């Protein structure tokens, strides 16, 4: 019989155990199972670690990665510096091979990390409460909209059409079966910000919440305060944000947001082909009982020692079943850990520095690109670390040429939003002046 390194049973073990149970063969333990499968699964037989690695190396070699290649592409997932310590702590098996902290006394590691994570997210968003992670940015927005509906019992949401198109798609999927309406707010063609007139026109008594980006999908920074002033108090303002930006820029909470969510990947998580990152989710404290997901609280033990537990579990599905605030069970705790380590090591000074470098580098790139005369500005609004340009040359061609130079060029929005000849460029702290200068002069020469 084949041996598997993950399975400890010797033949002798099996025989002894069968005898104890009082059956003759393992198949006797399946006597209640209908015999519907009388063949082996059409999956290759087990292979050795050596051959497995060979096979995976071959597949891996068919990918190009954004460490070997320079990367000017964002669109929801960003290429940031990840200190070595982040994944090395992430690899600790005491974190990796533990589950949800159902039993607090043997999960204080997890619980304290999540409490610290919640604090850090709250600090960034400027809101009092954070949960300990969601799946991703997109589902966080969808859940935020549902949460707003639970709060004000209204079931229509206005969402800026400058929110990441994939997030809007996910919201549509989530909201439709609930008969929750989603209406889009147009953007101002000139600034790239939300069209205030359109917003005003669409606001009415039925509206539960308004969703805007900060920055939005085109990198533009919305005026949260202005928007907050326009929408009535009982309508919740949901802000979708980039957590790195919040290191230096005004926090949405301070500017009037009720719920702030977003994709946490930029905080120390590898791009990983888009997953797993994590969704962050925070709100005003008054809404805590309507929040989805796991929340950790501090308390004391029998001896008066401080410790942590999961709180408000009665919101959750395992207690409340169909009456729960959400069906979410597994979250992205391990990715939240990576983010917590990242924030611990960067500190407030570090995150601020990163945010400002993103701002300055992307503006430097912007200015240089405009000078090539191959691109025209699309929006006037202030942007963070990415921006849209109208390209005079085929963007696919540009990207093909840049790929030959070992760069991933801008995102061709045609594939995402359908807009033709619009390139979404991104620069982060990882883009050097040297490579920005290179691609700009390279693009200048392209025809």
């Amino acid at each position, binding site marked *: 019989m084949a041996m598997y390194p993950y399975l400890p049973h010797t033949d002798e073990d099996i025989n002894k155990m069968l005898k104890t149970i009082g059956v003759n063969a393992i198949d006797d333990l399946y006597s209640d199972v209908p015999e519907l499968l009388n063949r082996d699964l059409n999956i290759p037989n087990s292979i050795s670690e050596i051959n497995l690695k060979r096979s995976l190396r071959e597949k891996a070699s068919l990918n190009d990665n954004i460490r070997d290649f320079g990367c000017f592409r964002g669109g929801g997932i960003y290429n940031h510096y990840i200190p070595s310590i982040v994944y090395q702590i992430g690899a600790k098996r005491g974190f990796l091979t533990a589950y949800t902290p159902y039993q607090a006394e*043997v999960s204080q590691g997890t619980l304290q990390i999540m409490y610290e994570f919640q604090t850090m997210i709250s600090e960034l968003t400027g809101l009092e409460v954070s949960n300990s992670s969601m799946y991703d940015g997109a589902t966080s927005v969808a859940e935020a909209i549902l949460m707003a509906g639970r709060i004000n019992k209204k079931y229509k949401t206005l969402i800026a059409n400058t929110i990441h198109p994939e997030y809007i798609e996910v919201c549509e999927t989530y909201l439709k079966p609930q008969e929750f309406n989603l209406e889009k707010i147009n953007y101002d063609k000139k600034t790239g910000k939300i069209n205030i007139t359109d917003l005003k026109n669409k606001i009415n008594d039925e509206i539960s919440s308004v969703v805007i980006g900060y920055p939005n999908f085109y990198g533009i920074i919305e005026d949260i305060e202005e928007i907050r002033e326009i929408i009535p108090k009982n309508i919740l303002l949901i802000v979708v944000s980039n957590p790195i930006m919040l290191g230096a820029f005004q926090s949405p909470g301070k500017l009037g947001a009720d719920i702030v969510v977003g994709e946490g990947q930029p905080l120390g998580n590898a791009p990983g082909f888009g997953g797993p990152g994590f969704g962050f989710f925070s709100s005003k404290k008054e809404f805590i009982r309507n929040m989805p997901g796991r929340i950790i609280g501090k308390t004391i033990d029998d001896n008066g020692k401080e410790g942590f537990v999961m709180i408000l579990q009665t919101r959750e599905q395992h207690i409340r079943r169909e009456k729960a605030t959400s069906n979410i069970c597994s979250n992205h705790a391990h990715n939240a850990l990576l983010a917590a380590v990242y924030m611990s090591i960067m500190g407030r000074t570090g995150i601020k520095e990163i945010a400002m470098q993103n701002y300055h580098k992307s503006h430097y790139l912007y200015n240089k690109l405009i000078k090539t005369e191959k691109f025209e500005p699309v929006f006037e609004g202030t942007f963070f670390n990415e921006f849209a340009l109208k390209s005079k040359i085929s963007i696919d061609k540009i990207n093909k040429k840049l790929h030959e130079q070992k760069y991933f060029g801008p995102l061709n929005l045609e594939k995402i939003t359908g807009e033709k000849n619009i390139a979404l460029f991104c620069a982060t702290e990882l883009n050097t002046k040297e490579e920005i200068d290179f691609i700009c002069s390279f693009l200048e020469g392209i025809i």
Partner: protein
Amino acid sequence: MKLIFDKSMNGRTGFRIPELDVPKENIDKKYLRKELPNLPETYELEVIRHYDELEKLNHSVDKGFYPLGSCTMKYNPVLNEEIANWENFKFIHPYQEEETVQGNLQIMYELQNYLGELTGMDAVTLQPAAGAHGELTGMLIIKKYLETNGFKNKTKVIVPDSAHGTNPASAKMAGFEIVEVKSNINGTVDIEELKKIMTEDIAAIMLTNPNTLGIFEKDILEISKIAKSNNTLLYYDGANLNAIMGKVRPGDMGFDVVHLNLHKTLSTPHGMGGPGSGTVGVKEFLKDYLPKPIVEKSKEDKYFINYNIKHSIGRVRSFYGNFLVYLKAYIYILSMGSDGLKRASELAVLNANYMKKKMSEYMNMSHEGICKHEFVIDGSFLKEYGVKTLDIAKRLMDFDIHPPTVYFPLIVKEAMMIEPTETESKERLDIVIENFKTIVEEAKTNPDIIKKAPHNTKISRLNELKANKELNIKY
């Protein structure tokens, strides 16, 4: 222990990035924070010691037995972690051109096929981020299918009283009403009861099989028949697939939709609560309803991402799901192979039955007889000593055993749900069986030691009331 914020010191730094090498762009001050977020200012060694200390406060599979029923806390192979850490997997941008991610796409394509074969399904999506997310996806598929095919009246979903809480919650999120079906004395779905509530408006039945009592729903073929004749779809909660890999397939039993928890059955680590991966498989007739996108192969053997799915329920997540998670499941499948996956299930069932048999000598089981990969103890027999299941759970910690799932399933009094998994050896099981025996003895002779447990952890029982009342949720 101290919070990282208490270890912060102004002016200390743990990061170092290159100085800005481009001219500074003006920025209107109004955009900027007046006060920085209160993130800790510390340095590498401090951070390392902080997490080193925190890690030691956790129980984990690597540390010891973790028989958390329904969670399948099996060994998470280190090989999978190593490979998922390769730059050519970790540093791939989701919007790279397809030509530059053929490796990833091939893996996804093959994994879709393997999971389809494993479950007896015809098409698979890798999008959902976790089991509950898969449930939602599956129920949305069912909803959209029914609506598209003129079954708008089908608004209800039957869920057994033994089901995971996510089942009703997910069905609800998908816009269904919930109808509960009671379990019979054998712990399985009561067929007569089922027939009674099987009205025309029933869209689907959600089942876990083996169910959360660890019992195989042996009437599954009859249930399937009942459902089919009512145009009701059958949904398979894959949380317990670890019992039956290579032995029987949901698709062959009549299920139309199935979600899998790759972080359970297929060995990807649970990571303190996630990330998981909750892939969903469907029968051919539901294929066009899958969320987008899925990976396909062209005639020229190139892999591509197909966003064009006729009746797709839409997106359920950004990008392509948790790639770095299901990559590990893919590696696990290749490691174990057709033969090894089957063996894993067989040994998981063997382990559970062995424990159940031995422990039956001194504990009450919720149901007699052969179980599958897990079994449930009825802890109420210790009531007379004033000892509750919760107490037993806490006392187990003193033996370096993670408590089983407790007070679930809801239909068993003082339930303790034990799932040893196949990666535990007979010697380990024998020790644990003895530990349980010791605790039962203690319950009878010295219940106080149990009621005040745990004794060997750094923190003893925590005041949950206070936590829920005072809501201290950040520093």
